[in-house]
């Protein structure tokens, strides 16, 4: 027989003689202990630590096992009882499982619950000693990781969908160009000028559509692929700049743009510029025939602290109710390209920007009356 190290022997004696040693180990390494009388199963001593973990005052408890059986998740209780039966029948089967309890505040507490049966001379279990370890922090981290993973998957899916749509929308005009050029060369061979001119005009139209698409995609990726760089942004100044940039369209349509009192918020300046440029640009573009656009940009407070709402209102053609839900989708368009040019990315970009700033975007609109786009934004970085 190996001789015990003198310190191990000393520790064994210390445990038997000094209760403070046991308390130290129990409190330092465990989150609750229980000791169950299997000969009288209505009796189970539970340590105060076990109750405190569940947010319960130990003084209100009477060492009745029904008290914890009410708080444990019932499907987990079933697993624990099954392991208990098996462990009693065969000491080699471990009583060891992760179970969930309902904390007094309603949250979930994850506990690794281990136990060992104490048997009499005949091997019949007469007591059970159990120990709890709190795994809640670990489990929460695990759940967060899983949620992050899902979010990353969703972002990945969106990226895949985006890549698909871009290839789709670029391949279509390039196919068309090939066909047009084939026809054009036949027309030139035949010295057929009128069709040749038509094919050249169609080629130019197709190339222009490609340009608009590539511009849209570049804008979208430039804004969405860089992390938001939050700084102090004067939205009134950005709105004024935007109006300056859109001056050509404003003059061409006779638009008036009214900029109300806008706040200074913590935001990404480039994204705020893109947001206002798209919304004001749309308000000008989708005007009614011979009705000069009247555009109002305003701010209002919301019920949520530090969250503001910026609205861009127009008197344009409006959006039919049944089509409003789709306008923020990638490459979603409501009109023929020659009626209203565009890539179908502007409002998708606006939504991304709003989400990047802890908010969202919505629209209220009626046909032939106008639309009001409302962007929720956080005033401060979260």
């Amino acid at each position, binding site marked *: 027989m190996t001789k015990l190290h003198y310190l191990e022997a000393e520790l064994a004696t210390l445990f038997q003689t000094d209760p403070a040693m046991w308390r130290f180990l129990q409190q330092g390494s465990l989150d609750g202990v229980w000791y169950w009388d299997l000969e009288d199963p209505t009796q189970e001593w539970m340590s105060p630590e076990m109750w405190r973990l569940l947010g319960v005052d130990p003084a209100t408890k009477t060492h009745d096992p029904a008290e914890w059986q009410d708080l444990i998740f019932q499907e987990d209780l079933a697993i624990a009882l099954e392991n208990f039966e098996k462990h009693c029948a065969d000491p080699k089967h471990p009583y060891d499982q992760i179970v969930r309890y309902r904390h007094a505040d309603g949250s979930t507490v994850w506990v690794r619950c281990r136990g060992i049966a104490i048997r009499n001379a005949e091997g019949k279990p007469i007591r059970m000693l159990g120990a709890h370890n709190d795994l809640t922090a670990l489990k929460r981290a695990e759940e967060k990781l899983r949620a992050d993973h899902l979010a990353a998957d969703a972002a990945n899916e969106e990226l895949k969908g985006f890549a*698909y749509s871009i*290839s*789709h*929308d670029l*391949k*279509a005009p390039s*196919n*068309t160009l*090939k*066909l*047009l050029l084939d*026809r054009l060369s036949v027309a030139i061979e035949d010295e057929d000028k009128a069709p040749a001119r038509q094919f050249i005009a*169609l080629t130019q*139209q*197709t190339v222009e559509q490609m340009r608009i698409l590539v511009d849209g995609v570049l804008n979208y990726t430039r804004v969405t692929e860089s992390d938001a760089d939050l700084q102090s942004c004067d939205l009134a100044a950005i709105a004024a700049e935007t109006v300056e940039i859109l001056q050509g369209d404003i003059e061409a349509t006779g638009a008036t743009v009214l900029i109300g009192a806008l706040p200074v918020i913590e935001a990404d300046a480039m994204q705020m510029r893109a947001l206002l440029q798209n919304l004001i640009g749309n308000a000008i573009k989708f005007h009614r025939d011979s009705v000069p656009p009247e555009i109002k940009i305003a701010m209002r407070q919301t019920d949520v602290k530090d969250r503001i709402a910026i609205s861009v209102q127009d008197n344009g053609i409006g959006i039919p109710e049944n*089509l409003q839900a789709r306008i923020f989708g990638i*490459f*979603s*368009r*409501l*009109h*023929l*390209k*020659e009626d209203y040019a565009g890539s179908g990315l502007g409002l998708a970009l606006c939504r991304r920007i709003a989400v990047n700033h802890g908010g969202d975007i919505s629209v209220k609109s009626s046909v032939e009356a106008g639309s009001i786009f409302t962007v929720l934004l956080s005033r401060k970085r979260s």
Partner: protein
Amino acid sequence: MTVIAEEIARPIQTVLLIDDEQVDQILYKMVIKDSGLVQNLVSFRYADEALEFLRDPDVPDIDVIFLDINMPRMNGFEFLEAATNELGEAFAKIVVVMLTTSLDPYDVERAKKFAVVKDYIHKPLEKKHLDLVVKLLSEAT
């Protein structure tokens, strides 16, 4: 009788073309005309307008619909769903879905779920696709 002679000569009576792109419309009309296989061509640039046309009880029998997918307002899949729900499977003898790319196999699967979709092609529409429709129509009768 000229009309009958023409009907015999042209194996496809009525084509419905649904595509929002102006340039594609012009090109496909040329392909259809040049093929000499088609008697009548009706075309729409919005799918909801094509659906409105099909709702008319006096609408002629449609041999084939060439259907674009990516369209504003109502896309090709939404059109197929609405037409099947409202008018039953018989709103056309054949629907050929026109895809722009083979990148997304999901679009192909989605198109195949509709019994009326007898084929899908990759844009642009060509003479060989019309030959295929002639073959499908003769198999169907």
